[in-house]
């Protein structure tokens, strides 16, 4: 070899060898320093051939590859990865080998790529450290979100009950000392609520990245691009498991697929669904990603050819926190849970179903992206309850209200409060039950707890909105444990007419519900535990805070609606329709309760009970008694309706006239 070229190779750290067979090489260039350090070979006059056999397991392994290359007569190069040899002094020296052919000679170049190697190590070290940091952050965020969930549900829910109980007890006839104690308890509850909100605020600061991502949702994302991006990322993993990953060929590739949401998080949703599909789908099968237009929404789905959904798990269990497949396929039980949280935050829904042939479909749908006007729903003012419309759809009073909440205490207290305000309330334990009831009865207002088993409030809302009549949309109010302003906005965007955060004051809920009526409504009614000694009008004025105008309106409403209710009860009795009878009696009970008409109210209660029990033998007698009581009440109210009421019922001489019944 030419002397300058030899020196050049040596300076670059290369040694050029020609393979002679049997592990023996002829040295074609001078030995670089590393060759001496690692294998003790230095080129002297007497060193022309070197035996590398047994000196390096890695090189021996590479020579097998090189031999195949040399025998193939392929052009080009066959390169090894970097390997590390230790020098005699213990220093680690990176080496790389290249096999090539030239003029029929089998050549091998070995070199030490320092310092490029050190730069590469540094680069990879930084990249992998970043990945580890990212993983750690993800875990921390997940932990915090779980903790957040626990704070909201484990601490706020009992507080909700306590707060409501204190409110109710304040209305009872308790001593001044008792009232003081109740106020003390109520204030302590409010203080605890503030502390919980403070903690949530801290989390909000900590989860800045999440919130930023939330804000990016305002700009929308292309669902098809997200699907393609994730498909590309997952293809190798799927290929490794011999599972085909496809885009459904029915997707309109030229179509517009903008949805509300942020691309990175949508890709995370797809990723979770694909990971889930891969976990259960068998080798040599396929998983398909599809998109379809769905009215104001776009629906995405992931179909697999696995065993289908487990029969013993409901949809809500599948998407619940820490839910894992029965076969142990899932990881931490967080993936699908976060899919649900994320989708619902953007006003979407998520679900799954077994496919008719085989496999399962996991789907989610998101609202089509429409740029928000500058005056968005966002506001910095803390509010106890918020409506997207200000004035909700006009309805009658008292109203028919459907309440769905999985907490029996909340159901009981909320129903109690609303009924005391004269409303007719049907309370159920989850969204599915609410849908079932709505198929047979109509309501003026539906109150849906956001987080319920079987079917969540959001899922129920979607069903209600899909089936509502254009002429009379139902007013749907969300009850939620997520009390932040973004959560309220999220629920309003999802289609709720109004939102009230839990724990809530019952009077706030009542005020909100009453805000959905066109007529002026009574304020919170005092508890009628003991028979009132006041006249009906005095009782009414007590409840409306002396507002005579309102009292007149309420009397007029009562006198107008009651005959219809009574005839409805009579009709139900004739038809032996116990449920209808119970429902109508329930509604009338609330109305007469406003006037302190305890006997009439008790009759209504009896009718309600008998109707529910389909016990028609005793109903006629109770109904007759109710008619008499109502007739007296109506006569009493008509007497007052024609003249001005005294401004202070408590001071009125009429109040001294006592009626055992009214």
């Amino acid at each position, binding site marked *: 070899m030419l002397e300058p070229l030899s020196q050049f190779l040596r300076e670059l750290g290369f040694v050029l060898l020609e393979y002679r067979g049997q592990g023996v090489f002829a040295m074609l260039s001078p030995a670089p320093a590393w060759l001496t350090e690692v294998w003790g070979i230095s080129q002297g006059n007497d060193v022309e051939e070197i035996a590398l056999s047994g000196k390096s397991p*890695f090189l021996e*392994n590479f020579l097998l590859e090189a031999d195949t290359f040399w025998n193939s007569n392929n052009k080009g190069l066959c390169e090894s990865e*970097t390997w590390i040899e230790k020098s005699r002094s213990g220093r680690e020296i990176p080496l790389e080998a290249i096999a090539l052919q030239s003029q029929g000679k089998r050549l091998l170049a070995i070199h030490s790529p320092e310092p490029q190697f050190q730069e590469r190590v540094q680069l990879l070290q930084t990249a*992998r450290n970043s990945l580890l940091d990212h993983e750690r952050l993800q875990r921390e965020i997940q932990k915090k979100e779980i903790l957040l969930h626990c704070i909201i549900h484990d601490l706020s829910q009992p507080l909700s009950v306590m707060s409501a109980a204190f409110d109710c007890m304040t209305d009872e006839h308790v001593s001044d000392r008792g009232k003081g104690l109740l106020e003390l308890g109520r204030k302590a509850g409010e203080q605890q609520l503030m502390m919980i909100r403070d903690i949530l605020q801290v989390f909000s600061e900590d989860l800045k990245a999440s919130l930023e991502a939330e804000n990016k949702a305002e700009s929308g994302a292309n669902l098809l691009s997200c699907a393609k991006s994730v498909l590309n990322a997952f293809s190798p*993993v799927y290929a490794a498991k011999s599972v085909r990953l496809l885009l459904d060929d029915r997707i309109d590739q030229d179509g517009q697929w903008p949805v509300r949401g942020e691309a990175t998080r949508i890709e995370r949703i797809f990723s979770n669904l694909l990971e889930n599909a891969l976990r259960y789908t068998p080798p040599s099968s396929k998983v398909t990603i599809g998109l379809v237009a769905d009215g104001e929404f776009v629906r995405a789905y992931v179909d697999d050819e696995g065993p289908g959904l487990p029969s013993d798990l409901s949809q809500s269990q599948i998407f619940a926190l820490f839910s894992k497949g029965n076969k*142990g396929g899932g990881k931490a039980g967080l993936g699908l849970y976060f899919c649900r949280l994320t989708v619902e935050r953007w006003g979407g829904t998520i679900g799954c179903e077994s496919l008719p042939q085989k496999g399962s479909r996991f789907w989610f749908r998101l609202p089509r992206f429409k740029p928000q006007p500058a005056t968005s729903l966002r506001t910095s003012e803390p509010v106890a309850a918020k409506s997207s419309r200000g004035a909700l759809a006009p309805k009658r009073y008292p109203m028919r209200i459907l309440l769905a909440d999985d907490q029996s205490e909340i159901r009981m207290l909320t129903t109690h409060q609303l009924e005391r305000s004269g409303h007719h309330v049907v309370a159920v334990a989850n969204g599915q039950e609410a849908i079932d009831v709505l198929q047979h009865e109509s309501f003026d207002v539906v109150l849906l707890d956001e987080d319920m088993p079987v079917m969540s409030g959001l899922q129920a809302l979607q069903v209600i909105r899909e089936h509502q009549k254009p002429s009379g949309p139902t007013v749907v109010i969300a009850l939620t444990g997520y009390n932040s302003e973004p959560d309220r906005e999220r629920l309003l965007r999802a289609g709720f007419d109004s939102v009230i955060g839990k724990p809530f004051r019952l009077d706030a809920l009542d005020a909100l519900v009453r805000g959905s009526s066109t007529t002026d409504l009574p304020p919170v009614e005092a508890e009628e535990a003991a028979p009132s000694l006041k006249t009906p009008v005095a009782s009414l004025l007590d409840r409306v805070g002396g507002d005579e105008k309102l009292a007149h309106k309420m009397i007029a409403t009562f006198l107008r609606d009651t005959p219809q209710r009574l005839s409805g009860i009579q009709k139900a009795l004739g038809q032996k329709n116990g449920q209808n009878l119970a429902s109508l009696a329930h509604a009338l009970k609330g109305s007469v309760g406003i006037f302190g008409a305890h006997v009439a109210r008790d009759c209504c209660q009896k009718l309600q009970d008998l109707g529910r029990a389909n016990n028609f033998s005793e109903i006629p007698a109770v109904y007759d008694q109710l008619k008499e009581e109502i007739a007296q009440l109506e006569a009493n109210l008509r007497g007052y309706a024609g003249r001005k009421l005294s401004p202070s019922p408590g001071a009125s001489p009429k109040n001294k006239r006592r009626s055992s019944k009214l």
Partner: protein
Amino acid sequence: MIQKKICMLGSFAVGKTSLVRRFVESIFSETYHTTVGVKIDKKIVRIDGAEINLVLWDLYGDDDFQKIRWSYFQGSSGYLLVADGTRRATIDKAIELEERARKEIGAVPFVFVVNKCDLVDDWEFDPEMDARLAAKNWTVLRSSAKTGQGVDEAFSQLTRKIVG
């Protein structure tokens, strides 16, 4: 003396190099140094009175930056499949790598080592996963390169599997 080639296989930062260093040199470093390329070490073990020279191929972790070259497994008698018990993703990665290994090099003896068992608070390898892998007839061991727990046992069990 019998010589057996063993490869270390797993995701990045699971502790493959640390396991080898603990096994060969009884050394552990808290600092994470990523492996670039291949390092080869040797250690003689005694199994049932017979000395066996283990040639340990410490391969870089498989990730988006460096993909495993299955040609390295040529002539290997078995491999130690390593995951980090505090990172569930590495356990899934190990399952994926085992499937790929079976496809590329056939049914070669291996032992699954869930490393970093000293980090109890962050442990994510639950009994459910244990049962799932046991159902696959995998040999699953917990190890800590930091404390040395389970390290010799892992190599020893693999060697026994290899020499049969």
